[in-house]
């Protein structure tokens, strides 16, 4: 009997295999990609149920290879042969496993799934007339069934998802069989109602049904498995009733598939507008797209593919104006090798390059940074001023790309009659700025409020930022870079409202430093930030740090160039500028600016210069600096060169110091912007230094003597008067 059945099955399978081969020529519905969801520790269970009922119509025990759990069991009268553990009741974690796996399946169905129609029998439906399916997702908005006496074939390694809107019912003596590497562990049935697996007329040595039945825990989601059915799979029906009748059920071996996740991200610096769904990543095996590929890009955790072990190549369709790099577990050429059970992730980074990646030949950048000084009681902030470069609206601290060369761009703002406006940095006094290709220009606008001075002038904030990329160069081509930003409070008052704006890296994460977690950069506190990105071409990253104290903002800007594709280590230079004092309370006075110039990079710097737009007297040519410990006129990374400059200030002043240094044919520069508050020079009218108080009382004796004097004088006057009268 069994031999005959086996023979007939073999013949049936051969017939279907031929049919499948023919289908290969006539084509079938393209499958959507599907990925096996994680069922957690439920993987050892053959049956998970609420009330489990078993019957023995023929005297043959129900045989479970695996674990069993239920709330209400079948009792001793109707025994079950079980190889694993019997657990009662089912642990809540089984329900969690089930609901999370179902959520995963439903998400995949919602994303992309082949709709087979309403109330269909999958053994014969348009596109699958022979009942054969390749890996993928298949759905019906109604019931899903298999006609009695027919066979459905799952052909090929991969994940199969069958999702129905109603019950799933298989007829008597129907079969679901696996061929060409298909695995029961990777077959998932997600019914929208009850599941009824048909009976077999006789016991079957091969499975009559395969895969994981994932039941919703709602009402009407019970499972009934007919007499003599032979299941290679799992019935996961936490909270629902399961009924069996002399069946065989065996937990399948673990999946041999690997998971490949493909993440797509877009870097829209300088105004790119594409989104991840504008990109189409491919996953190919031997030059052919795998099932579900290509598909539109998705952000992390990415789009998943369940794939058999092998070496795959990921790629992406060309997108104009974007350069694509591949990272993660994939090689930069997109190759990734998967072994059974692997979970690997490949990341596509698409970087906007408006000039088509010509290495910055036709572009330059302008960063406009704003400083606001409210030392006379006004309260405007940076957001109250609209900034423009020509007619382009820009944001303080954000680097903007512009065509170059160009004779003059003009930086403007919507002014405020209560604030003065001063340009500094690379702008001239009218806000004009010329660009050559490759320039990274900085324009600083300082707005100082106009009004009556306040009796105690506010102390301005002072911050300092230094940025170091790692590595400094990517000689082998595009690759990851991590920027480390060190932000310090070099002033005398706590600084709040810290913002860090970087032009080509996000997110910028605060790693350490705010030890009391009050979001205030305390005096002498040092905050460490990091940001990682992928550079595809030589690039100068610019970071703008802004902070506030006492109604005054301070800004510091650091830039660092990373060379891509050439074995050149670029220079780095840093200047910290500290004025003394920060406040001149009485009208005017001398301020000494100290410039501390260091080399945070690795290359010794030649031709070091230091200049300040509002303090004269700094050396134009530096040689023999006392800080040059090895007397080679090069600023090494272990040296500190200090400079000072004195200036007489008569009004609140923001000035910009700039240090430059060269190495390997490249020049690095750093700016330092500080504000010194001068109490307006109008002490007579508005600002008065109080005189010291008159706190004394005359001593008793002194008081008495005074009164005696008065008495004597009065008496003497009276005597004189009397004498003259006489």
């Amino acid at each position, binding site marked *: 009997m069994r031999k005959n059945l086996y023979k007939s099955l073999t013949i049936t399978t051969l017939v279907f295999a031929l049919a499948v081969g023919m289908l290969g020529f006539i084509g079938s519905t393209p499958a959507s990609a599907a990925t096996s969801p994680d069922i957690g520790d439920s993987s050892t269970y053959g049956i998970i149920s609420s009330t489990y009922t078993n019957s023995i119509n023929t005297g043959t025990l129900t045989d479970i290879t695996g674990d069993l759990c239920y709330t209400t069991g079948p009792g001793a009268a109707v025994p079950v042969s079980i190889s694993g553990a019997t657990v009662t009741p089912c642990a809540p974690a089984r329900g969690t496993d089930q609901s999370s796996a179902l959520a995963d399946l439903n998400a995949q169905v919602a994303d992309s799934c082949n709709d087979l129609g309403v109330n269909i029998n999958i053994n014969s439906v348009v596109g699958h007339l022979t009942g054969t399916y390749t890996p993928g997702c298949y759905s019906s908005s109604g019931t899903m069934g298999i006609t009695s006496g027919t066979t459905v074939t799952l052909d090929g390694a991969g994940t199969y998802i069958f999702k129905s809107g109603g019950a799933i019912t298989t007829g008597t003596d129907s079969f679901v069989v696996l061929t060409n590497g298909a695995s029961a562990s990777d077959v998932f049935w997600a019914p929208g109602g009850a599941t009824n697996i048909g009976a077999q007329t006789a016991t079957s040595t091969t499975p009559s049904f395969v895969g994981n039945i994932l039941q919703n825990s709602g009402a009407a989601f019970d499972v009934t498995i007919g007499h003599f059915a032979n299941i290679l799979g799992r019935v996961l029906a936490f909270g629902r009733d399961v009924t069996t009748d002399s069946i065989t059920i065996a937990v399948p071996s673990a999946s041999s598939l690997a998971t490949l996740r493909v993440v797509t991200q877009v870097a829209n610096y300088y105004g790119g507008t594409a989104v991840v769904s504008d990109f189409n990543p491919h996953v190919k095996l031997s030059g052919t797209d795998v099932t579900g590929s290509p598909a539109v890009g998705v952000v992390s955790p990415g789009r998943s593919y369940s794939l058999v072990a092998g070496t795959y190549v990921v790629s992406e369709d060309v997108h104009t104006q974007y350069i694509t790099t591949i990272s993660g577990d994939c090689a930069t050429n997109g190759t990734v090798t998967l072994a059974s059970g692997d979970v690997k992730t490949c990341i596509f980074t698409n970087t906007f390059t408006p000039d088509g990646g010509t290495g910055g030949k036709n572009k330059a950048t302008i960063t406009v940074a704003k400083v606001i000084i409210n030392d006379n009681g006004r309260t405007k902030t940076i957001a109250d001023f609209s900034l423009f470069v020509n007619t382009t609206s820009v944001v303080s601290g954000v680097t903007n790309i512009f065509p170059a060369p160009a004779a003059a761009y003009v930086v403007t703002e919507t002014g405020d009659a209560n604030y003065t406006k001063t340009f500094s940095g690379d702008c001239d006094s009218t806000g004009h700025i010329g660009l050559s290709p490759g320039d990274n220009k900085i324009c600083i606008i300082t707005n100082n409020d106009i009004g009556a001075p306040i009796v*105690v002038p506010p102390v301005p904030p002072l911050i300092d930022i230094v940025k170091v990329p790692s590595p400094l160069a990517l000689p082998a081509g595009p690759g990851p870079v991590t920027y480390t930003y060190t932000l310090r409070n070099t002033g005398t008052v706590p600084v709040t409202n810290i913002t860090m704006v970087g032009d080509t890296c996000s997110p910028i994460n605060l790693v350490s430093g705010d030890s009391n977690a009050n979001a205030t950069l305390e005096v002498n506190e040092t905050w460490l930030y990091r940001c990682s990105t992928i550079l595809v071409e030589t690039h100068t990253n610019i970071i703008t740090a802004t902070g506030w104290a006492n109604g005054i903002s301070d800004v510091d800007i650091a830039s660092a160039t990373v060379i891509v594709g050439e074995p050149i280590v670029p220079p780095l230079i840093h200047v910290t500028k500290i004025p003394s004092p920060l406040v001149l309370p009485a009208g005017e006075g001398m301020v000494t600016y100290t410039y501390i110039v260091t080399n945070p990079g690795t290359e010794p710097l030649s031709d070091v210069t230091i200049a300040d737009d509002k303090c004269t007297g700094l050396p134009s040519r530096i040689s023999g600096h006392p800080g040059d410990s090895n007397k080679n006129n090069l600023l090494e990374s272990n040296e500190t060169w200090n400079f000072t400059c004195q200036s007489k200030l008569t009004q609140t002043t923001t000035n910009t110091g700039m240090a430059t240094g060269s190495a390997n044919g490249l020049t690095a520069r750093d700016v330092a912007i500080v504000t010194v508050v001068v109490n307006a020079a109008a002490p007579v009218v508005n600002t008065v230094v*109080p005189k010291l108080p008159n706190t*004394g*009382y005359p001593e008793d004796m002194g008081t008495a003597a005074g009164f005696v004097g008065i008495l004597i004088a*009065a008496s003497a006057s009276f005597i004189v008067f009397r004498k003259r009268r006489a």
Partner: protein
Amino acid sequence: MQSKTSLQQVLLAVSIAGIALSSVVIILLAFGLPTQGFFAKLFGSVKNSASSAAVGASAVVGATAGSPTRISIPDIGVDAAFEFVGLTDDGAMDVPKNPAAVAWFSPGPRPGEVGSAVVAGHYGPWKDGRKSVFDKLHTLQKGDSIYVTDTKGEIIVFVVREIRTYDPYADATDVFFSSDGKAHLNLVTCEGVWDEAIQGYSKRLVVFADKE
């Protein structure tokens, strides 16, 4: 003759006035009333109203401290309440009404805030024998502690940094202003010899203290 008569009448009037004044003073002394306040009111030499137009807004600094309520300087036996004062009409910091109290210059920073908080106290014996709060201020030494309690109930500790003597009309910028971003407390009183002409002492004593 006419002129002699006029002179005699003037002298008579002055004599009467002198006697009357002496009598009032004697009465005041007998009942222990404040003569300085009396003279102040009589001659308008001291005004208690702060000149808000001249002072403007108070310091724009982190207002973390409350207003001061009490000062304690154990080394010289001071434990006194605060009065709040501004400027007199002639531009001087005003003084406490009560010789046993101290006065905080309220247009400036509060004690404990960034900047220089200035506190004045009287010096010299009161006519009824009572002492003034800062009679012994000159005996403070560098390193001595000053405790200020504020309205938040917090006690702010200051440590004496230095003691300086000023002329009464010296530039007091150093006393009222600081730019090092730290919190200071500067105590002011008088010292030297009593000068009848200016109804005050010849010097001012300032104790500069820093928040601990």
